[in-house]
């Protein structure tokens, strides 16, 4: 079982958390002009990287809050966690979508 650090509550067992998948996906605003290809890309297409991955997690059995995480999908190690709206740590450079509400 993973040990996950919630940026609000501290380190807890994985069973308290819910993984929310890829982080930083922003709902598009110009929805009325979007093509099917753009919609498909936003709704379904995912990076699914082998290596460092920007994810969103929720401390669902704890404080209930969402947060950002940088996790290696091979070693499963959490490289960094940061609160929603905070500036991503330096380690996240290159892994967080530009323009995204990280």
């Amino acid at each position: 079982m993973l040990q996950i650090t919630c940026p609000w509550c501290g380190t807890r067992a994985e069973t308290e958390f819910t993984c929310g998948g890829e982080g930083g996906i922003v709902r598009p605003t110009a929805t009325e002009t979007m093509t099917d290809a753009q919609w498909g890309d936003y709704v379904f297409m995912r990076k699914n990287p082998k290596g460092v991955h920007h994810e969103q997690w929720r401390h669902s059995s704890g404080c209930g809050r969402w947060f950002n995480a940088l996790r290696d999908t091979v070693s499963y190690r959490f490289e960094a966690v940061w609160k929603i709206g905070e500036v991503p740590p330096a380690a996240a450079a290159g892994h967080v979508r530009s323009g995204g509400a990280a």
Partner: protein
Amino acid sequence: MQKFSIWSLLRNSMSYHEGWQKQWRSPEPQREYDVVVIGAGGHGLATAYYLAKEHGVRNIAVVEKGYLGGGNTARNTTIVRSNYLWDESTALYEKAMKLWEGLSQDINYNVMFSQRGVMNLGHSLQDMRDIERRVTANRLNGVDGEVVSPAQIKEMIPFINLNTRYPVLGASLQRRGGVARHDAVAWGFARAADAHGVDIIQQCEVTGIRRDGGAVVGVETAKGFIKAKKVAIVAAGHSSVVADMAGIRLPIECRPLQALVSEPLKPIFPNVVMSNAIHAYISQSDKGDLVIGAGVDQYAGYGQRGSYHTIEHTLQAIVEMFPLFSRVRMNRQWGGIVDISPDACPIIGLTPVKGLYINCGWGTGGFKATPGSGWVMAHTVAQDRPHALNEALCLDRFYSGHLIDEHGAAGVAH
């Protein structure tokens, strides 16, 4: 190819079984192939086999990063069934089932396909309504299926505890479902493909897909560049990684899926039991070990291992339903990387790159489809268009919105 039969077995017994040939060659890659298949798992090898056999394509290579059949083909729980809900998926899995029924003869290799029946248990009234619906849909699609009562389940498995925390109210039963020997499927397809002249190149990782003007021209590998008219990606858990080499985005997320086997026991478990609601499935291999599958872990992972609490959860359900297994010791436990698509249906078809084809998204249930998957993929690659069986399963369904929602309906423990 040296044909396997009772006569060849007898003949070879005269020479102390020292005269058997290698089952496939280990060739060095040629400079150019008509088709290069990326991934020598069951699906990739089946693709190569049917390309050679059904479509007369010569000059095929299957390139593999590790060793053949060493990924999810070696890591699944070997269950074969075709009792899916929707027409599109049922047709494909039923095609696979029909191929399974003749596979050992076709490839002259005993894949130990055993149609011992697959039960999907229902634990609530809603489960039972879904089971009724799925069985009815199956029968309308020409797939065998029946709804069985708790008494009938007890008759088949006398030691099952029906009165658990989530009582067993009934089950669907597909009698043609069962299990097959996973390794034999990979080895059998490898041997049969090799006999058709397919080069199986192991320890040869693909590092890039070379394109020219929107068309594929070959693959960069650990053993150098291999020119190819057509390239088929059949990379299961590494589909996103390989597709990314050609700039293709996929709606796939990879998760660890764990399984475990017990110490060998005398024959006790008569068929396959799956429970979607409590995330457990179990059967007994011909070797005697109980083969138990768990649900997927919640996070993306390429590590071929998952979290302990996931298998603990599964074993709690198994022990509650089968209390006599509570003292059985587990021998081995492992994880595979399953490529899950948003609608729990595979993606088989063309890609935006000309001459590049993809077969992925089988998620937690690819093994059962192995021959069918290879069969439709071979058609897709050879004809440069999908077969009627995989027309609805192409990548473009995620842009058109025509998803085939097998989540939950499929009786899969997600």
